């Protein structure tokens, strides 16, 4: 640990990744630290490797070189199932689209987080019952219809679906929220409102945010902004 700065939640060191059969690395990250509850915006053009990087952080893909530490634990030291468990316990994911299982109700979708992680279930039920916590979350995220929890997920608008996905990702206060262009399917107004609700809820639960997008207009809401273009591997002629 360095000096007085708090232990990072996520620490990437000399992280390189290339797809099997490709000699060239997709990106190389000399160092990236994310503190607890910090909000990081990562901008990158399409195809720059944003989703791939999030797969590495989620422990679903393994880096070609370098090290990923999350909560002080080295991914290289962890088994695949330990990484799966860590992901279930401490990370929430929101994707661009299709976050929900269409045949489940909104409530069932949100409760999936608690079902895959006893840890998150116990944190969610710390001060109230699971059902109350789900209700609180959806209301905090601006879903106010009284019957919303009983509706089937495929009966919601895209904006509503993203909020439900957000509620599921935040249930049980994970340490890290990973958002992969969650707003790119939303119109400008909804986008703004969605970001604000999401960030304020993350702040309340002290959840760090790793938000990737190609849309830099959203960067203003975040503590810090990085660009994938800064992580182009050596010798590939990155930005001048």
């Amino acid at each position, binding site marked *: 640990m360095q000096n007085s700065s708090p232990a990072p939640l996520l620490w990437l060191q000399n992280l390189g990744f290339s797809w099997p059969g490709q000699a060239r690395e997709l990106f190389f990250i000399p160092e990236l630290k994310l503190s607890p509850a910090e909000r990081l915006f990562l901008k990158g053009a399409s195809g720059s490797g944003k989703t791939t990087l999030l*797969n590495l952080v*989620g422990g*679903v*893909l393994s880096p070609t070189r370098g090290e990923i530490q999350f909560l002080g634990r080295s991914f290289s030291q962890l088994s695949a199932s330990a990484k*799966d468990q860590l992901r279930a316990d401490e990370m929430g994911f929101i*994707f661009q689209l*299709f976050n929900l*299982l269409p*045949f489940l109700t909104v409530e069932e979708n949100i409760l999936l987080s608690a079902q*895959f992680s006893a840890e998150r279930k116990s944190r969610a039920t710390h001060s109230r019952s699971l059902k109350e916590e789900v209700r609180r979350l959806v209301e905090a995220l601006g879903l106010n219809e009284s019957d919303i929890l009983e509706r089937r997920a495929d009966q919601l608008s895209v904006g509503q679906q993203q909020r439900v996905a957000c509620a599921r990702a935040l249930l049980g206060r994970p340490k890290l929220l990973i958002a992969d262009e969650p707003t790119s399917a939303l119109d400008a107004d909804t986008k703004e409102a969605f970001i604000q609700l999401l960030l304020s809820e993350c702040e309340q639960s002290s959840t760090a945010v790793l938000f990737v997008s190609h849309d830099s207009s959203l960067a203003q809401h975040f503590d810090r902004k990085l660009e994938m273009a800064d992580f182009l591997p050596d010798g590939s002629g990155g930005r001048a």
Partner: protein
Amino acid sequence: MRPLVVLAIKSLWNRRLTALLTALAVALSVVLILGVERIHQAAQSSFMGSVAQTDLVVGARTSPLQLLLFSVFRIGNPTNSISVKTWKHIDSLPEVKWTVPLSLGDSHRGYPVVATNDSYLEHLRFRQSESLSFVGGRWFEALHEVVIGAEVADQLNYSLGDKVVVSHGTGDVTFTHHDEHPFKVVGILRRTGTPVDRSLHISLEAMEALHHEEEEHPGHSHGHSHDHHHHHHDHHDHSAQKISAFLVGLESPRALLLLQRQISEYEAEPLTAVIPGRALQQLWQGLEIVHNTLRLIGALVLGVSLLAMLLVLLSTLNERRREMAILRALGASPWAVMGLLLFEALLLALSGVVLGGALLALGLVGLKPWLEAKMGLSLHFGGIASGEWMILVVILLAALVVAFLPAYQAYRRSLADGLRVSL
């Protein structure tokens, strides 16, 4: 693991029409495979039950199977008759305990009329060792008395005291009516689940008298020749000269083979002596091709139904890529994703098996009265036998094996896709 079980069920429920059709295909193969075995076994034990404790069936020379079919099962007509003298001679042999004479060839509204004597009531056994008994009335004593089986009584609605007309020839179409002397129902037998239920029983003398009358009324010619006519026309004692066959019970089973050979080599007239169990064995062997063909069809239907399941699972893989990615993001391992598909297949096969079992049970219960009425089979369907459990387990395992392909694909894909929720 538990959330995945619930998810699999809900996901299947969401696709319940496809799932139901897939399960139905499996169910049909279960019905076919188990149904064939069930009916085969029930028919075997029912046939065996009809010849219980009869050691030999003796008739004029013919094929053993034909002799057995017309004498015991009342299927088809006797070809030739044998003389009463022969029967009496064999009856008197020391190793013979009892004989039951049978004279067949007449019918009443499609039901066979059997001329016999008191030993029929005394010695005939069904289902191993049960003897005949009456629902009402008694055995025939006078010439124009008839004792009817349970099925005859039920179907034709006869009760004690009713008058019955016997016609010559078998089958529904009657050739000649012996209108002159209707028979009076004096006894109704309890149900046995054997061809006795479908029979009407009269005395040998009554049969003889019937045929006398026929010949004394030339107007009743019927162009149907039979062997009962070779007796003397000039005496009216009505004692039988010919019978169709007789059943033999032995003092000791050790004499069986020797006696069978003795009878086959009988000099006064050509005879056939059949060991019923053996002849039935031959019948089953002859039917084995049919049985195996039905088994093969069952196996093919099972194969097709499993292929249908494979298609359903494979075709859903693409649309469920997202579902897999969501589950991975929630912390499910690729193995869990694979397990989800295997479990789904197991669930499909299991519902197919349960559905098939239910359909089979319903079908057999529904078919039983018909089989009993038409075939004289008494079918006993018990619970699931151990051999059937084996078949069911094999079906489930086959479903798992088949599901391994899509499951493995899901595993590979969820490893490659990771959290990439594409399109």
